[in-house]
C-alpha cells in the first residue's frame, strides 16, 4: 500500500490523457500551421512569418533570462545587432576573404554567446535595476560603434545582408530555414526549462536564499543561460540581416527590445508557449493596423504598462485553468515516517556537526559571543532562548549566510567554508526557514525537486538535448520527490501551485525539500510556528524519526512542549551566549532558564 501511494501521478497535470495533451496539442497545432503555411502561397505572409520566427529565436533564449531567471535584460536587441553585423560583414568580405553564409551564421552564434556572457556578467553581482541599466547601456554602445566603425559595418550607409544559398534560398526555402531554427530553439529552451536547471532558474528568481541552500550555484547557471541566450540572439541576428537584405544601425532600435520584452511578459513568466504566442501576436499585429504604424512604439509601451499593472501573470496564467479548480477544503497532513529509510537510505554513517568558539558581531551588536555547540547524529538538539538571543543567527552561520569573525564550523572531519551558502548542500546540510521560502509559481512537486539539485549527474548541454543521463536524472528526482512528499504527507498536492497551499502545508513542503538532500544535518527554524496542536504532534514524530534515521537535527523553536517532547539535548541561548545546556529534564529545572525564559 505504501508503494502505490508513493508512486502517485508524478507529472503535474498528467493524470489524464487530455491533461497531457493540452500542453503538447498547442505545440502540434502551431507546428502544423508553420509547416503548411507555404500552401497559402502568399509571399507577404511568408515575410511576416519569417520575421516572427526570427524574433522568436531571440526571444526563446531571452525567455530563459527574463521569464525563468527573472533578470531584467531590457537591451537584448544588442545581440540581434551583433549577430546581424557579424554575418553581414563576414559574408560581404568586409573582414578578410568573404565567408560562406552558413559559416558566417555559426560565427554570429559564437559572437552572440561571447557577448551574452559579457553583458550577463554584471547580473551576478548587481541589483536588478543596475543590470537593466547595463544592458540598456550596452545596446546604445553597440549601435554607436556600428555607426563609427565604417570599414566593417559601413557606418550610417549600412552593409548588404547575405543571401543564403540552396537549400534555404530566398522565399519559402529561407522561411523553412527560419522555421526549423525556431523549432530547434523552442525544443532546446523547453528542455532546459523542464530540467533541474530550469527549476533552479525559477528558484533563483523567486526564492534565491532557498536556491542557495539547495546548492544551486547561481553564477555558473546564469552564465550558461546567458551563453545560450546570446548564441540564439546571434543566430536570430544573422537571419535578420538576410531578411532585411540591407542593414543600417537604425534597423536596431530600442523599440525592438521592448517588443521582445513585451512578447515574453504577455506570454507570462515561466512558460514557453505563452511567450511564443506573445511574440507571434506582436509581430503580426502591426500588419493589420497600418495607420497606427507611427504610434506603434507608444502602443507597445502602453501595452507593457497595462500588462505589468493588470495581468502580471500573462497569458500563461489565464490559460492555467487547472490551478483554478478548487482544492479540497479540509485537508490533513498525515506524515508517514515509516518511508524515511527508503528516502534517506538504509545504512547511514552519521556525522557530528560542531561549532567551536563562534563569534559574530554586526557593528557594535555582539550577536554571538563565543559559542560552542555539538550536534550529534541520531539526536534532536533543541536551541531555545528569548528573541534576539542568536538562535537564527547561529543557524545562518552554520548554513553559510553569515561568516563569523572567529571560530569554525566542522562536519565530521571537514571544516565548512565560512560564508558560502551554496557549498552547504554538497556537505548534506539542509535547512528550513522561519518564513517558508518556496517558489509560489511552481508546483509543490517541482519545489521539492529543487532540493535534489546537486544529485543530478547530467550537464547543462545534456539537458539541452535531453540525452539519456538527463532523462535518468529527471526520473530519479521525480521519484525521490514523490517519496519525500509521501513521507511528509503531502503527495496528494504534488501538482498544485505552491502559492495555493496553507501556511502549515508550506512548512512541510520545506521539510520535504530539505529531506531530498538526504541530510547529514537538518536544521529547522521554528517549524511549528503557525501549526495546530495536532499538526505539531505529527511534526514532532516526523522530526524524531528523521533523527533516528541517523541525521543530526538542530531545532530552533519557541514551543516549549515540542522541545521537551522530542529533544535529546537542549541548549539555551541568551545574548549570544550559552545560558544552560543539558537534557530536557535538566533544562526544565534550571533556575536561571526558568526565570529568564520559560517562566514559572
Amino acid at each position, binding site marked *: 500500500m505504501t508503494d502505490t501511494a508513493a508512486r502517485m501521478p508524478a507529472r503535474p497535470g498528467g493524470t489524464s490523457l487530455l491533461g497531457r495533451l493540452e500542453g503538447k496539442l498547442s505545440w502540434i497545432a502551431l507546428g502544423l500551421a508553420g509547416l503548411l503555411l507555404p500552401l497559402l502561397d502568399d509571399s507577404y505572409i511568408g515575410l511576416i512569418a519569417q520575421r516572427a520566427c526570427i524574433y522568436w529565436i531571440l526571444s526563446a533564449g531571452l525567455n530563459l533570462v527574463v521569464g525563468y531567471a*527573472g533578470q*531584467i535584460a*531590457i537591451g537584448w536587441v544588442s545581440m540581434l545587432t551583433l549577430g546581424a553585423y557579424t554575418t553581414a560583414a563576414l559574408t560581404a568580405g568586409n573582414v578578410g576573404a568573404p565567408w560562406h553564409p552558413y559559416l558566417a551564421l555559426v560565427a554570429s552564434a559564437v559572437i552572440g554567446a561571447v557577448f551574452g556572457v559579457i553583458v550577463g*556578467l*554584471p547580473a551576478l*553581482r*548587481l*541589483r*536588478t*535595476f*543596475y543590470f*537593466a*541599466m*547595463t544592458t*540598456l*547601456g*550596452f545596446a*546604445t*554602445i553597440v549601435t*554607436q*560603434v556600428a*555607426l*563609427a566603425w565604417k570599414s566593417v559595418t559601413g557606418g550610417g550607409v549600412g552593409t548588404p545582408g547575405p543571401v543564403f544559398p540552396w537549400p534555404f534560398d530566398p522565399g519559402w526555402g529561407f522561411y523553412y530555414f527560419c522555421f526549423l531554427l525556431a523549432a530547434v530553439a523552442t525544443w532546446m529552451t523547453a528542455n532546459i526549462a523542464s530540467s533541474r536547471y530550469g527549476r533552479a532558474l525559477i528558484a533563483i528568481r523567486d526564492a534565491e*536564499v532557498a536556491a542557495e541552500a539547495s546548492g544551486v550555484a547561481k553564477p555558473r547557471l546564469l552564465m550558461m543561460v546567458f551563453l545560450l541566450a546570446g548564441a540564439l540572439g546571434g543566430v536570430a541576428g544573422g537571419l535578420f540581416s538576410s531578411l532585411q537584405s540591407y542593414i543600417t544601425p537604425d534597423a536596431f532600435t*530600442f523599440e525592438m527590445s*521592448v517588443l521582445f*520584452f513585451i512578447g515574453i*511578459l504577455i506570454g507570462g513568466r515561466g512558460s514557453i508557449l505563452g511567450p511564443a504566442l506573445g511574440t507571434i501576436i506582436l509581430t503580426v499585429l502591426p500588419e493589420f493596423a497600418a495607420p497606427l504604424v*507611427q*504610434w506603434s*512604439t*507608444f502602443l*507597445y*509601451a*502602453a501595452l*507593457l*504598462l497595462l500588462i*505589468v*499593472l493588470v495581468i*502580471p501573470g500573462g497569458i500563461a496564467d489565464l490559460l492555467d485553468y487547472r490551478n483554478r479548480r478548487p482544492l479540497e477544503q479540509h485537508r490533513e497532513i498525515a506524515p508517514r515516517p515509516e518511508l524515511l529509510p527508503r528516502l534517506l537510505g538504509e545504512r547511514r554513517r552519521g556525522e557530528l556537526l560542531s561549532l567551536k568558539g563562534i563569534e559574530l558581531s554586526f557593528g557594535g551588536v555582539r550577536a554571538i559571543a563565543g559559542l560552542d555547540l555539538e550536534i550529534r547524529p541520531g539526536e534532536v538538539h533543541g536551541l531555545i532562548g528569548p528573541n534576539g538571543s542568536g538562535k*537564527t543567527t547561529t543557524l*545562518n552561520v552554520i548554513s553559510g*549566510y553569515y561568516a563569523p569573525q572567529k571560530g569554525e564550523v566542522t562536519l565530521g572531519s571537514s571544516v565548512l567554508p565560512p560564508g558560502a551558502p551554496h557549498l552547504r548542500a554538497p556537505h548534506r546540510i539542509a535547512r528550513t*526557514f522561519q518564513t517558508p521560502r518556496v517558489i509560489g509559481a511552481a508546483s509543490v512537486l517541482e519545489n521539492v525537486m529543487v532540493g535534489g539539485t546537486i544529485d543530478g549527474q547530467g550537464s547543462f548541454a545534456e539537458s539541452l538535448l535531453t540525452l539519456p543521463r538527463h532523462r535518468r536524472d529527471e526520473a530519479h528526482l521525480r521519484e525521490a520527490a514523490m517519496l519525500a512528499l509521501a513521507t511528509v504527507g503531502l503527495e496528494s498536492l504534488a501538482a498544485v501551485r505552491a502559492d495555493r497551499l496553507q501556511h502549515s502545508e508550506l512548512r512541510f513542503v520545506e521539510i520535504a525539500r530539505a529531506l531530498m538532500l538526504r541530510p547529514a544535518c537538518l536544521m529547522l527554524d521554528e517549524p511549528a510556528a503557525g501549526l495546530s496542536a495536532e499538526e505539531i504532534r505529527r511534526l514532532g514524530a516526523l522530526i524524531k524519526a528523521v533523527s533516528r534515521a541517523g541525521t543530526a537535527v538542530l531545532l530552533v523553536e519557541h514551543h516549549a512542549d515540542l522541545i521537551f517532547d522530542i529533544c535529546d539535548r537542549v541548549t539555551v541561548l541568551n545574548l549570544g551566549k550559552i545560558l544552560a545546556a543539558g537534557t530536557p529534564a535538566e533544562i526544565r529545572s534550571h533556575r536561571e532558564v526558568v526565570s529568564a525564559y520559560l517562566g514559572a
Partner: protein
Amino acid sequence: MLQSIVSYGLAVGAVYALIGITYNVMFSASRVFSFTAGMLGMLGGVLGAIFINKWGINAALALLLVLACGALLGIVTEVLTVRPVLKSVEQHLYVLSTLAFALMIQQVVAIEFGTEAYPFPVLIPIDPASIWGAIDQKFWLPVLACAVTIAGLEFLYRKTLIGRAFLAIAEDSYAARALGLPETRLRMASYALAGVIGALAGFTGAQMLLAFFGNQSILNFYGFVPVALGGMGSNRGAVIGGLALGLFQQAANFLVGGIFAAVAVFAVFIVVLLLRPEGLAGAATARRV
C-alpha cells in the same frame, strides 16, 4: 583645450548630477529607481523650447511652467507606475512600469515635437563683452542650478519639518508610518520634488544639450552612473560622481574621440560596479535571511 574640457565637462557633469539627484529623491521615498528621471530632463529642454520659441512666453515664466509640468509628471509617475507595484518591490515590476511610462512620453514628444534636435534660446540677455559674459551662460547655468538645488535640499532636509519627514520615510518607512506620517502623500511630494529637479536640469542644460527627444536615454544612463558610483540615495555622491563623469567624458572626447569616450565611460561603469557593487561611497547590504 583644457579650458573647454573643464567648462563643458563641469556643465554637463552638473546636469548628470541633477538627474542623479532626481533618481535619488525618488529612490529615498520609495526604494524604487525610476526610468522617468531621464524623461524629466529631456522634457525640461523640449517644453522650454516650446514655451519660449513657439508660444513666445518670457524665460522666467517659462521656467516656472516647466517646473510645474515636471512636478505634475512626477505625481503622475507616482500614482500610475509606482504605487500599484510597490507591494511587490522585490519582483522589480517598477523597472518595467516606469520604463513603459517614460517610453510613452518620449514617443508623444517624438511624434508631436519631432525627432530632430532644436536649438534652445539664450535665457539671459548678457553682453558677451561684459564681465558677466566671460563664460558662456550655457556653461554656468547648469552649475548654478546644481548649486541652488543642493543648497535647497540641504535647507529642506535640515531645517524644515517636511524635510525631516522625507528623511524619516527614507530611513525606515514602517517606523515612519507607525509615527503617523502620511507615507503616501510624502511619497507623492517626493516625486513632485524629483520632477522639479529633473525638469530644472533639462531646462538649464538645454542650451548645451539642445531640445531633443533622444536626450532621454542619454540622460537616463549618464544620470544613473553617478548614482551607481556614488552610492544610491547619496546626493553628495551623485554630485561628485556627476562632475567627475562630466570631466572624464569630455577629456575622453577630446583625447580619443566621441565614440570611444562612450565605450570608455561604459567600461569604467561596469568595472567599478563589478569591483564595488555598493558604489564607491559604500553601503551595507541588507539582511537576507
